[in-house]
């Protein structure tokens, strides 16, 4: 298993093997699921109460479907761990965090100093997401 290099949660990491979205509905004892780019994250919404870990796979960093999958799950109220795996690079981290990812297990090692700098770089955001950051327009009219 690929090591989690960054984690922004205080609860115990889930060790369960992640099953596919297709089989998750039948495997009623499974608590971890892996979302591939072509999967419909909304298929998981009926089962959110028993999911503790969602891994979203980025086979290539340019395939951005996982960003929508993450937001859909967070918007549906999912509060468990949301882990980005695969071709996850330093300059994607800030976007991924904003979409709701709270752990990162990239297949290539991140330079943690570069990662921290990238995550801290933008003090302000234009868009609200479920990450709770206040968008600029809300500050202007706060």
């Amino acid at each position: 298993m690929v090591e989690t290099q960054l984690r922004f949660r205080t609860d115990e990491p889930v060790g369960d093997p992640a099953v596919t979205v297709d089989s998750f509905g039948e495997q009623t004892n499974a608590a971890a699921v892996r979302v591939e780019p072509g999967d419909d994250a909304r298929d998981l919404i009926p089962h959110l109460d028993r999911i503790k870990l969602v891994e979203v796979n980025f086979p290539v960093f340019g395939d951005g479907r996982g960003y929508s999958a993450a937001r859909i799950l967070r918007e549906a109220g999912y509060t468990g761990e949301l882990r980005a795996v695969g071709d996850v690079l330093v300059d994607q981290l800030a976007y991924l965090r904003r979409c709701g990812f709270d752990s990162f297990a990239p297949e290539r090692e991140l330079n943690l100093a570069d990662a921290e700098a990238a995550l801290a770089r933008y003090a302000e955001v234009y868009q609200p997401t479920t990450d709770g950051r206040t968008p600029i327009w809300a500050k202007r009219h706060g």
Partner: protein
Amino acid sequence: MYQYDTYDQAMVDARVADFRDQVRRRLDGSMSEEQFRPLRLMNGLYLQLHAYMLRVAVPYGTLSGAQMHMLGDIADKYDRGYGHFTTRQNIQYNWIKLEDAGDILADLATVEMHAIQTSGNCIRNTTSDQYAGAIADEVVDPRPYAELIRQWSTFHPEFSFLPRKFKMAVIASDTDRAAMRLHDIGIQIVRNAAGELGAAFYVGGGMGRTPMIAPLINACVPLDQIIPYSEACLRVYNRHGRRDNKYKARIKILVHELGKDEYTRQVEAEFAHLLTQNIEPPLAELERIKLQFADPAFEGGISDTLDRSDPDFALWVDNNTHVHKQPGYRVVTISLKPVGGIPGDASADQMRLMAKLAKDYSFDELRVTHAQNIVLPHVQKAELYTLWQQLDAAGLGSANLDKIGDIIACPGLDYCSLANARSIPVAQKISERFAAREQQIGELKLKISGCINACGHHHAGHIGILGVDRKGVENYQLLLGGSEGADTSLGTITGPGFDEDGIVDAIDKATDVYLANKSGEERFLDTYRRIGMAPFKDAIYAKEPVNG
């Protein structure tokens, strides 16, 4: 015009630091070119034929004198003394060094400019009507809506790795001056039957190898829901747009393959969901932005007459100025298409002169047009003559707006690594061939692309030219009958292609057919639409008569 507050400024300042750090990691080897490429592209830095090219955003084509002045200074300081204004209202520099890119961005940030998302598979610079705020035929000034979209689309966390690039345009006039329906999303601000303002969404237009005219998917989205509606359009695209084939990855293919109705159904479902997420900026934010686009302090009661005694000046006024909503003013278009010149290119000195003229005569405001010209939106009629003399002395006085010499041309194979053939030399030959006849020929929009990507909008030209590579030799296909206004249509290829001189001859024959068949005040396009392709084709491909 819009001015940054501390938040907007912090954003572009952070971007400078961000990009400097990315360049550092590329140069020190922590990042491969494969990883760096999408990052530099999202900041408008391409590798072209001769060097890096930097594309700087001019949001909705509006800029101040200070901004235009800075564009000139950057051309001198970091490039070779000129820049190229593009069909997306941006400017490109052709000779940029990677090491200088951070410094250029820092200079741009001092005048509230940037290169954010001017390339890459993300939401690009939002374009608009170059006459916005200056003419009477608009419902409202469309630019506040474009600014709202600019902010929403900047570093959008979900939509920065889309299947393909994404271009939006916002207009507010039935006279479409922004090729709105040839965009991934075209928005027209409209007033509905009840008198309320709303946004009509056209989705899935575009040029490229599969040109399509965007269908209307929602006739009147409430003004405070433009952002969630856009977000819904993008989310459906991000999730379901094709990623298996680069050439089928634009949203137009998704809309086409799903069908307009099914795409719309999915968008409406996503929209209903997003309305529960409180992501829309309040109307107060729109009002805040609108205040910054308030009319400048026009003088009332000034003379509305013009001394036309200088015939060259009168010709320029008739061709290159447009009626203004305020009596006593005109909208001026500065042609960047001198005879034999490079369409859209301006020297650093010319940029600084235009900046000064904007300060002196146009409330410090300029616009870039998608036809690669520059607009001074608010000029008093009484000052037109002085203005024109200064333009003319600097090689900016061509009286050819919308004439055959006002050619849109992409950089082509002289600069672009994607091109198959050169565009600029063809444009130069055409403008020279027809210079003496262009007033007689009248309105004729001629557009040249050096490859199928159609940056030169050849599909939408009354006459379009597409450069192709035929066994290593440049070859040019001719299209007739395209348009990008309110009457948007796509051109049809006449037949076999031509070499560089042959294409100029073919256009000569086509304009002869037009002049011979023209009825009344018909433009070239009108005559073509009335008489069809056949007479043009017959003339263009006729065998030369054999005689002694």
